[in-house]
């Protein structure tokens, strides 16, 4: 299932940009002709993120027409959130 490979790549993409930060949510834009099944993506996300800085994060998917397949944004815990 290629969604697994896509999520593995996503974890790297997010981890590179958020070193040491706790990820609260990941926002994706997925086109209906992209060849990606959103349900399979969500399933893969839950499995692949275990033990990574993305564990427990919310996956938010904006389904759009077309073949877009993008990581839109990442919501992070503010660094001083724990007083």
């Amino acid at each position: 299932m290629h969604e697994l490979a896509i999520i593995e790549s996503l974890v790297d993409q997010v981890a590179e940009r958020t070193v040491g930060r706790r990820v609260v949510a990941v926002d994706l834009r997925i086109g209906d002709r992209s060849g990606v099944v959103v349900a399979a993506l969500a399933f893969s996300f839950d499995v692949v993120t275990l033990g990574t800085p993305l564990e427990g994060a919310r996956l938010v998917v904006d389904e759009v027409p077309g073949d877009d397949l993008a990581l839109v944004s990442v919501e992070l815990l503010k660094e001083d959130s724990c007083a």
Partner: protein
Amino acid sequence: MCLTCGCGEPETEVATETLTVEERLLAKNDDLARHVRASLAERRITAYNLMSSPGAGKTSLLERTIADTERDVCVIEGDQETTYDADRIRAAGARAVQVNTGSGCHLDASMVHRALHDLDPAEGSLLFVENVGNLVCPALFDLGETAKVVVISVTEGDDKPLKYPHMFSVADVVVVNKTDLLPYVDVDLDLLVHRARSLSPSAEVLPLSVRTGEGLAAWYSWLGVRDAVRA
């Protein structure tokens, strides 16, 4: 409440910030594919990503091509398990590297990049990357190839292009194999060709039989190796 350790009042809003990224999900694969494409072009190596369902005849087409032409051909083979296909290519007289994906359903640019280091194709040679047999997943992954070849055999039915539109829409050429079996199957070859063309209007559609040799001349023309075909 703090999500890190649970301290603070439950009603306290967690302070977060949004980092805008706006990057393709397959950016890492695509960047590496671009690097592969550039380094192949630099060495004048033409690379073909060969995709089909299992058993359509990708390996047989390669064996026949290797036997029939004097061009330097080398192959990266992709399968979940075994070295059967790389063994067949070597027996046919060409160099091959086998990639085993385990549970993976497609080759990606990092696998091809690594395999190219082992294979080290000669300048000006033809490189074929035989993808994992699968009409779905390989279509999404750029390997750095020059062109995508989709193989379908007549035994699979004339509805398959419509059922797997993503794959057929990215094909640069569609090889329709096993035409020698047409008398034994309920397939409308013209309809199959029409459907493949409707999904990729610029693609060549080449009905042929690897077994009998019918139609192979057009495949060698498309590959640009007609001048190197053995007499």
